[in-house]
């Protein structure tokens, strides 16, 4: 089968090429990487494309174990396929190799067992460079995720418009209609007028909140900068000092002299400010407010801990809606209900985590962990 007899008529035609030479030409110049691997895992032959992909000379590769070219994270994965091919089963899989300059190359690999007279002698492989395709897939995935997130946000806005914005508007409408009535008791008229103003102010506040929230994601692209986490906490403490002392409260800070963090300064400042003002807002009327703030570095992360002795919450009851927009959990306190939502979004954009522990009538601890 291998040896066709050479044609006799012409010496300068394709037909004059011996199949063996044709095969070798095809092997060497084929745009996909083609190679054979001995049963001990060393390269037996490699074509030009293998050398180009791995950026190595043929002499460097032949005799070397194929695993050395594979990205370490894919060693086990590619070995299992190699083993299966070695046991006589053709394999098709994707893997990642590293070129000598350290670049990752995604490959779509086909492995066949190579047998001579029924005996396994090695593995034959064809690998296509799918790096570009992979990058496109990853970019597509990122876009899909971003679109999904934006759609969820749109749904959230729809709910805010339907539920939350309608509420002050309905009040404005009702109050103005009420004020048009004759013979309204004077007391009612006065209350209605001040409620009218209050509702208008609330609506205004909500418009500003929504605007702030929408601009949050554009700010996410803002460059990060080096800033001092401890200084930020002290600034927030100073700006809220008046509220704290008027509430008869005290704040302690456990922190190193300085702690440098590479972050979006505005976000970090807003997170600290919101959690601290929440502690003041939800203080217990039965005892003097005490807040302890800890700032500490743990490995490659900075951990902020805000502990208060305030009203606390039953987290089983509050559940996942704690960080939702316009959700309030205390009747007596006039919260806009946006603070914790903003905190959570900012923590997410900074690729950090936020955790909460709370006991009703004892207090609440918020722990924010951000990359340094």
């Amino acid at each position, binding site marked *: 089968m291998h040896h066709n007899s050479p044609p006799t008529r012409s010496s300068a035609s394709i037909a004059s090429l011996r199949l063996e030479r044709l095969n070798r030409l095809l092997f060497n110049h084929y745009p996909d990487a083609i190679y054979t691997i001995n049963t001990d895992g060393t390269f037996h032959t490699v074509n030009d494309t293998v050398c180009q992909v791995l950026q190595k000379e043929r002499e460097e590769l032949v005799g070397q174990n194929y695993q050395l070219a594979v990205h370490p994270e894919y060693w086990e994965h590619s070995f299992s396929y190699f083993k299966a091919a070695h046991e006589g089963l053709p394999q098709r899989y994707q893997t990642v190799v590293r070129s000598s300059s350290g670049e990752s190359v995604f490959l779509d690999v086909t492995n066949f067992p190579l047998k001579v007279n029924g005996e396994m002698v090695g593995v034959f492989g064809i690998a296509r460079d799918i790096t570009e395709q992979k990058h496109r897939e990853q970019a597509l995935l990122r876009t899909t995720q971003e679109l999904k997130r934006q759609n969820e946000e749109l749904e959230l806005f729809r709910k805010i418009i339907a539920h939350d914005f*309608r*509420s002050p508007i309905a*009040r404005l*409408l*009702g*109050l103005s209609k009420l004020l048009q009535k004759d013979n*309204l008791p004077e007391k009612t008229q006065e209350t209605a007028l001040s409620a009218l103003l209050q509702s208008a102010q609330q609506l205004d506040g909500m418009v500003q909140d929504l605007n702030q929230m929408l601009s949050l994601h554009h700010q996410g692209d803002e460059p990060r900068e080096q800033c001092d986490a401890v200084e930020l906490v002290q600034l927030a403490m100073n700006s809220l000092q008046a509220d704290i002392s008027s509430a008869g409260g005290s704040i302690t800070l456990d922190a190193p002299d300085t702690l440098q963090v590479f972050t979006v300064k505005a976000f970090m400042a807003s997170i600290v400010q919101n959690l601290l003002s929440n502690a003041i807002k939800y203080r217990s009327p039965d005892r003097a407010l005490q807040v302890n703030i800890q700032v500490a570095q743990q490995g490659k992360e900075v951990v902020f801990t805000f502990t208060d002795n305030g009203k606390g919450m039953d987290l089983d009851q509050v559940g996942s809606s704690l960080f939702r927009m316009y*959700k*309030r*959990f205390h009747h007596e306190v006039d919260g806009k209900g946006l603070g914790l939502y903003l905190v959570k979004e900012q923590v997410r954009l900074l690729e950090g985590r936020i955790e909460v522990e709370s006991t009703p009538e004892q207090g609440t601890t918020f722990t924010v962990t951000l990359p340094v």
Partner: protein
Amino acid sequence: MYKKVYIVDDDEVSIFLTEAILEAESFATEFKGFLDPKKALYNLLENAKNSNTSALPEVIFLDLNMPFISGWDFLEALAPYEHALKGRCRIYILTSSVDEHERQRAAASGLVAGFLQKPLQDGCLTQLKRN
């Protein structure tokens, strides 16, 4: 004119407003506003359990979006006493929400006599009075 009307709403201004509109329309002789739905619920459950129907309000205006106990939770808690309340106590959802899902959900509930949008309209009150 009705005797007793409950208004369950976590918003003080809303209670004031509903009450003022109802008063101006001479809707009832006694209004009771509940900022905390839990208190209204205790009151209703107590009277329903003891079959003290004369103490029950004839009309309840119930807000939906409230912290801890939403209007839906409220209705769910009352569901076991539907027979005691039916015919005696009409519950109207009174919400500022324009969410169509909520209107449908209310229509599916046996306890709900109607779904009203805030602010209460005079025309709609006349209809409630006739009912």
